[in-house]
């Protein structure tokens, strides 16, 4: 029996590689499902691969630290009043079906995003109304904003252009091609859709006529496959079933992979801040002394050195330490004696009773569970009881967006959606984003004034100073518990070369990578 099984296995092992021997293939195991290919309805890191490889934006984020490079558009200018943004498009871009891209495609794509209101569309809606985008000529497109914006440029890469002729042909009852775009690609990106199965993933075939051309070496075919179980992804990479995985791995996993010589770990600074959001609007957390007690009750070193095994760097504020505008302040330390002092000060004012603190965690994300457990551990030594409630991300994220249902504390990450301080300090602590993104109910007029001003002026040095000042103020108010800035550990087969990592796309932009034995 044993021999038959072995014989069967080796026979199968011999058979598999012959399928794709002639082509260089890259197989990526992803931690969540590619359940839609529509580039305009989702905007999450988990499903970024289909957007990056099938579609092109006006500009593109590359490298680390992230740089904005011209892509479908070659340049832009902004009108005197800061409202009208005019982009010059390349004239040599063709979609996968050979149709030439024009400014009309950009207008259609942008209006489609605003109309669908999901994905990146909801980000643009507050800035620009539908109908304010015009094709000046075939290669010029102009956007007219409602008010000047310093972050519009950072969002331009999110304007992914679809083949409007193709999409319009496939519209059903004015759905802007939604039903069609779920499982079809109408783009100009580096790869063309070859196969797609929402239960499995997708295969892309290299688009040889891509306007940006190709290097000497490249992958002929890329496959992104859904493998939900972390352990299976890791084992699969070690067995050679996959050539790459998503890069935010727990340190224990990184250690295991490092031990394998067929696997390389590409280590990069990233911008993904892990913090515990606190409800500043609800007693007792509305009191600064109480919050000061909280920020001193978390075992930062234990978390970073033991649980994360030193793979991440302490980040003292909400701003990633490696981004411009981050202030230079020392992080709060784990000091229960100090915490006790602040707690006593709080009690002197408000009485000895302290109610149970509720921490919400993200089900399935063990780092948030471990952070909550550590917080619980610290607070129990101060005599404060903690209740932990674990819910799936969608549930907790909708609870967080309402001050009545927001738990007292929620540990989670703030990832890079666009590289601008507003992505972190602005969205999380400015009043204009309450309650949907400023979930902490933090309101401070002085801070608001700085953050608002930074949104409309364009001088980067002045903006950096405003963000630095605002962040320092928020830090002094102990508005949250800021823990670390993630490093990215990209696990790839040793034969994969030239992975060009960028925090925005998580290294899944495959057009530059290639295979070399």
């Amino acid at each position, binding site marked *: 029996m044993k021999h038959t099984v072995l014989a069967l296995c080796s026979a199968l092992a011999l058979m598999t590689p012959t399928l794709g021997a002639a082509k260089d293939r890259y197989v990526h195991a992803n931690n969540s499902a590619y359940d839609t290919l529509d580039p305009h309805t989702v905007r999450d890191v988990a499903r970024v691969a289909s957007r990056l490889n099938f579609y092109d934006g006006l500009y593109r984020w590359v490298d680390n630290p992230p740089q904005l490079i011209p892509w479908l558009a070659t340049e832009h200018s902004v009108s005197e009043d800061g409202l009208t943004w005019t982009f010059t498009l390349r004239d040599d871009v063709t979609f996968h079906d050979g149709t030439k891209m024009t400014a009309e495609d950009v207008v259609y794509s942008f209006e489609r995003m605003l109309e669908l209101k999901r994905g990146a569309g909801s980000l643009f809606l507050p800035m620009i109304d539908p109908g304010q985008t015009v094709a000046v000529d075939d290669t010029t497109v102009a956007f007219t904003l409602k008010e000047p914006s310093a972050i519009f440029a950072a969002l331009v890469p999110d304007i992914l252009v679809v083949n409007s002729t193709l999409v319009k042909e496939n519209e059903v009852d004015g759905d802007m091609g939604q039903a069609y775009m779920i499982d079809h690609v109408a783009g100009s990106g580096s790869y063309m859709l070859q196969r797609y199965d929402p239960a499995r993933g997708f295969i892309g075939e290299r688009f040889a006529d891509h306007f940006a051309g190709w290097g000497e070496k490249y992958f002929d075919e890329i496959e992104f496959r859904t493998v939900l179980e972390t352990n299976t992804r890791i084992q699969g990479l070690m067995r050679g079933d996959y050539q790459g995985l998503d890069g935010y791995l727990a340190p224990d*996993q990184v250690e295991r992979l490092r031990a394998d010589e067929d696997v390389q770990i590409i280590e990069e600074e990233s911008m993904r801040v892990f913090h515990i959001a606190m409800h500043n609007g609800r007693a007792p957390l509305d009191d600064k002394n109480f919050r000061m007690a909280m920020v001193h009750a978390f075992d930062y070193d234990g978390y970073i*050195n033991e*649980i994360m095994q030193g793979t991440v760097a302490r980040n003292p504020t909400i701003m990633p330490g490696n981004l411009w505008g981050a202030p230079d302040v020392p992080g709060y330390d784990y000091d229960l004696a100090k915490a006790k002092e602040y707690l006593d000060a709080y009690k002197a004012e408000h009485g000895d009773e302290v109610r149970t603190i509720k921490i919400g965690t993200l089900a399935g994300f*063990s780092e948030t*569970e471990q952070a909550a457990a*550590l917080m*619980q*551990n610290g607070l129990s030594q101060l005599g404060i009881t903690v209740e932990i409630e*674990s819910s799936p991300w969608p549930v907790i994220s909708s609870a967080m967006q309402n001050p009545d249902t927001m738990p007292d504390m929620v540990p989670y990450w703030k990832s890079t959606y666009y590289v601008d301080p507003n992505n972190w300090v602005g969205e999380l602590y400015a009043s204009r984003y309450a309650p949907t993104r400023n979930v902490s109910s933090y309101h401070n007029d002085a801070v608001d004034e700085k953050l608002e001003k930074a949104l409309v002026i364009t001088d980067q040095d002045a903006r950096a100073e405003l963000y630095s000042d605002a962040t320092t103020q928020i830090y002094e108010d102990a508005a949250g518990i800021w823990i670390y800035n993630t490093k990215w550990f990209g696990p790839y087969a040793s034969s994969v070369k030239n992975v060009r990592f960028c925090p925005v796309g998580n290294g899944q932009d495959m057009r530059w990578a290639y295979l070399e034995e």
Partner: protein
Amino acid sequence: MTALKRLLADRAASIGAALILGLILVAIFAPVLAPYPGDVTAFHLTERLQPPSADHLFGTDRMGSDVFSRILFGARITITIAVIAVGVSVGIGVPIGLIAGYYGGFPGGFLMRTSDIFLAVPQIVLAIAIAQTLGPSVENVILALSLTYWPFWARLVYAETRSLKAQTFVEAALALGASDLRVMVLHILPNTASAIIVRTSIGMGATILTAAALGFLGLGAPPPTPEWGRTISEAREFLPEAWWYAAAPGLAIFLVVMGFNLLGDGLRDILDPKLRKGSR
């Protein structure tokens, strides 16, 4: 007493009874028996994922806590879930089955059709739907299991009641002027008791497995609760290196469910002579 004697004479059943007794004792005396009773909530981050040793019988987990101690405390959760969920199911299912079987007709038919709806889907599927909506917690697991498990008892008692009602002793009692309630509670219910007891023992085992599966899927108690199913799913990231982390709770579930199944089999042999003849 004879039933107990016969139970003890059956080797399988007495092993089962011993396992369950063990579970109960462990649950009650967990704080005394556990080498590190504080480890349900306390962490020793420098001692993460240590293999089994004299200090840590089943090794340590991702927070450096003693797996053995946590398993012992987990017994409390397991037994609480099983006892309450099965208790509530019996409490709902038995009266419904009794009433439906006794009165028959439209109300009886209606009640049984209602239970058929619940039986139309595997229990775990409905339990998943309920637990998912209510959010992960021990209480909600119990609620989900109770809401989906009662029809099994209703069906069982219904069938028994139907056949008992036709028997002469019931007719005699009615002829003597006994009220419906009296007949149901004093004459019919005791005669269905053995079937209920057997079903309950096996049902406890099944409930523990379902509860563990819910925990595994992340629908059970939140961390750092030492629930067994949850511990197994936590351990998964650390396989195959930290094999002890998943092995220990898996074996604990196995032993306890085995205990209830063996006891159930033994009880069936003793209490239900009909089946006994067939299976021996």
